[in-house]
C-alpha cells in the first residue's frame, strides 16, 4: 500500500490527494489482497479478478474506484469498463520507460476516456509537459509547487496529440 504523495497537480492546480494506490507485494494475490477503505486505485489484475466485488463496493458503499495500469498493460483490457472508474492511473517504473505515453494517448484518443488520468512513479517536473500533451491531467510529482511551471515549458507544438487533436499545420491553415 502506498500513498501517492499528499499533494498532486490536478487540472493545473495543486490539490490534496485522497487516493491510495493498491500494489501487490510479496505474497499478495489479486484474489485475496485486502481492500482498504476510501478512494482506491487498484492494479489491473485485481480488477480482472474481482470486478463485481469492486463495482458493488463502489455502488453500495460509495467508495470511489480507480484503476492503475502498469507499463506493460494493454489499455484495451479496460476499454469496456472505463465508465466504472473515476481515476485511471499509469505507473512509470522508470523515467526512461515511455510506454505510458502511448498508453495515455490510446486511452484518450482511441478509447475515449474523459475522466482523471494520473501519471505516477518515476516522473519529475521535466516530464510534465509531454505527459500533459499525451492526455494526463493529474501528476503525482515531488515538489508540485515548483514542478507545476514546467507544464508550460513549451507554448506551442507541431504535432497532433491527445490534448490538441489538430497538428500545427492544420490549425495554421484554418486560422489563415
Amino acid at each position, binding site marked *: 500500500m502506498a500513498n501517492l504523495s499528499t499533494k498532486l497537480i490536478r487540472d493545473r492546480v495543486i490539490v490534496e490527494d485522497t487516493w491510495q494506490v493498491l500494489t501487490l507485494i510479496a505474497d499478495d494475490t489479486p484474489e485475496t489482497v485486502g481492500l482498504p477503505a476510501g478512494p482506491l486505485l487498484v492494479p489491473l489484475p485485481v480488477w480482472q479478478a474481482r470486478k463485481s466485488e469492486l463495482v458493488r463496493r463502489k455502488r453500495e458503499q460509495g467508495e470511489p474506484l480507480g484503476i492503475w495500469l502498469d507499463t506493460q498493460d494493454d489499455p484495451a483490457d479496460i476499454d469496456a469498463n472505463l465508465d466504472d472508474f473515476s481515476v485511471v492511473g499509469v505507473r512509470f517504473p522508470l523515467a526512461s520507460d515511455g*510506454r505510458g505515453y502511448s498508453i495515455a494517448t490510446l486511452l484518450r484518443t482511441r478509447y475515449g476516456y474523459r475522466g482523471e488520468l494520473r501519471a505516477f512513479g518515476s516522473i519529475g517536473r521535466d516530464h510534465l509537459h*509531454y505527459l500533459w500533451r499525451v492526455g494526463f491531467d493529474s501528476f503525482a510529482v515531488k515538489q508540485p509547487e515548483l514542478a507545476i511551471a514546467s507544464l508550460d515549458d513549451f507554448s506551442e507544438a507541431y504535432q497532433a496529440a491527445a490534448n490538441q487533436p489538430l497538428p500545427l499545420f*492544420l490549425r495554421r491553415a484554418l486560422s489563415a
Partner: protein
Amino acid sequence: MYRYNDIDRLLVRQRVTQFRDQTRRHLAGELSVDEFRPLRLQNGLYIQRHAPMLRLAIPYGLLSSKQLRTLASVTRTFDRGSAHFSTRQNLQLNWPELARVPDILEELANVEMHAIQTSGNCIRNITTDPLAGVALQEVSDPRPWAEILRQWSTFHPEFAYLPRKFKIAVSGGPDDAANVRIHDLGLQLVKNAEGEVGFRVWVGGGLGRTPILAKVLREFLPWPHLLTYFDAVLRLYNLHGRRDDMYKARIKILVQSLGIEEFAHQVEAEWAHLKDGPATLTEAEVARVAAHFAPPEYETLPKLDAGFESAKRHDAEFAAWAARNVHEHRVPGYAAVTLSLKATGHAPGDATSEQMEIVADLAERFGFAEIRTTVQQNLVLPDIRKRDLFSLWQAARAAGLATPNVGLLTDIVACPGGDYCSLANAKSLPLAAALQQRFSDRAQVADLGEIKLNISGCVNACGHHHVGHIGLLGVDKQGEEHYQITLGGAWGIEAALGKVIGPAVLAEEVPQAIEWIVDNYRVYRRPHERFIDTLKRIGTESFRDAAYGNAESGQDAKEISNG
C-alpha cells in the same frame, strides 16, 4: 533552405530556456546525475572520456553560410577551434564546458539551429542525400519531406522515451544516396504506375552489435499518409520494442522477432485507426514547406564550359580533383563540389574554425550561400558554375580542402574513437592517419579507384564499418588494440554487410594488411572493375590469404611488418 517562422523560433528559444534551467538545477544539486542524463542527452550532450561532447544538429545536412560561420565561432569560443562532422551529418564539439552549453545553444538559436534530439532514445536527426535537389537521378526532392519529418519528430510527446535511439533517412531516388537500409526507418521517393509521388518504406536496418539491413515495410505509401503511418510504426515500437536489454532494443530486433510480414500486418492494424485523421498531410502544407527548397536563380549556361575543359587539360592536379570531387548537376553549366575533410594528417571529418569560415565564404562567393554535410564526413557546395571551378579549387586547395580523394581509399570514414569516446576499444584516428600516410601516393590511390574504408572504434559502429568495402572494427585483446577486418560491405542501393575475414590484426599491422588486400585487387581486377566488383566476382578467399601475409599465419605477418 527552410527558414524559421515565429513558431519555429519560439520553440527553439523555449528549449534553450528549459535546458538552461535544467543545467542550473543539476549544477545546484537539485537534479541528480541520473535524472539529468536523459535530459542532457535529448540535447546532444554526452559526458565523455575527457570532457563533455556536444552534438549539434544539422537537419538533413543543410547549412547556410551564416550558420556555418556561427558554428565556426562557437567552435572557437567554446571549444578548441576544431570540430568533427559526424556520419549522421551533424557536428560534434569535443571540449565544451557543461555550464556554458546553454550559451552555446542560445548562439545556435540565433541562427535557427539547435541540438534537439541529437542523442538519447528518441527520434534523431533525419539524414538525406547531400546532393538533394541537384542530383540527376532524383524522383523528387527529399528535403521538404525531411523538414516535414523534422517538425513531426521535434518534441513529439509520445515518442521521447523510446526503447532505443531511432534514426530516419530519406532518399530522393533509386540510387539511395541516403543509405536508407542502415536506418530504423527509411524512405525512398518513388512514383507509382499513375505517376503519383510516394514512398517505399524500409524498416529495421541498423549496424552496431547486430547489423541488419532494412526490409521493405510498404512498397508504396502515398505521401499524404506519411505522418499517420509513421505514428503507427513508432507507437508499435514504443509499446512492444524490448526494454530489458539495450542491445536488443532497436526496432530491427522487434521486426526480426515478429518477422517482416507480421510486423507489417501490425503496423497496418494500428494505422487503420490513424489513417485519414487530422495528421494527414495536405497539399497546402507540402507546398508551404517545399517553397523553401525552390531552386535558386540559376543562370542559363552552356552545358560545357570551355575554360573548365581547358584548365583540366593544362593542369593535371586540377584534373585529378575534378575527376573525383566534382559531381554532375541537373542544371547545365553547373556542378556540385565536394570539399574533402580527409587531408593527410587530419582526422577524418574534422574542420577548424578557419576552414569553416573559408567554406562559408566560398559558398557565398561561388554558390548560393549553401553548404551540405555528408555521411562520408565531407562538405558539399551544391551549386557551382563550371566556369568558377578552377578559382574555387585554388581557394579550397589553399585551405587544405581540395584533397582529390572523394570515394577513394583515403576518403576514410572514422568515428572519433578512443581519443574522445569512452566506449571505444581502439583509437580510430591514429589508425586513419597511419592509413593515409601509407597511401600518400595520390596517383596510386587514384588508380585503385573507388574503395570505401570505414573505421569504428567499437561494436557500436559509428564509423559504419559493416558497410565499408573494407571495414575495420576496433577490438580489445588482452589490453592491446586490434582490428577486425571485414570485406564486401556496400552502401546505398547495393547495400551489403561485410564479412569478417579472420582473426583481428594488431593495430600497427593494419596498414600492411590493407596494402596486401589492395595489392591482391590489383592482381585480379579486370579493366575498369571496381574493388567491390572484383571482390564479388572472385570471392574473399584470396583477399583473406593476402591480408594475413599470403596465407601465412598471423604470427608471420607480424614478423614481416616488423621487419
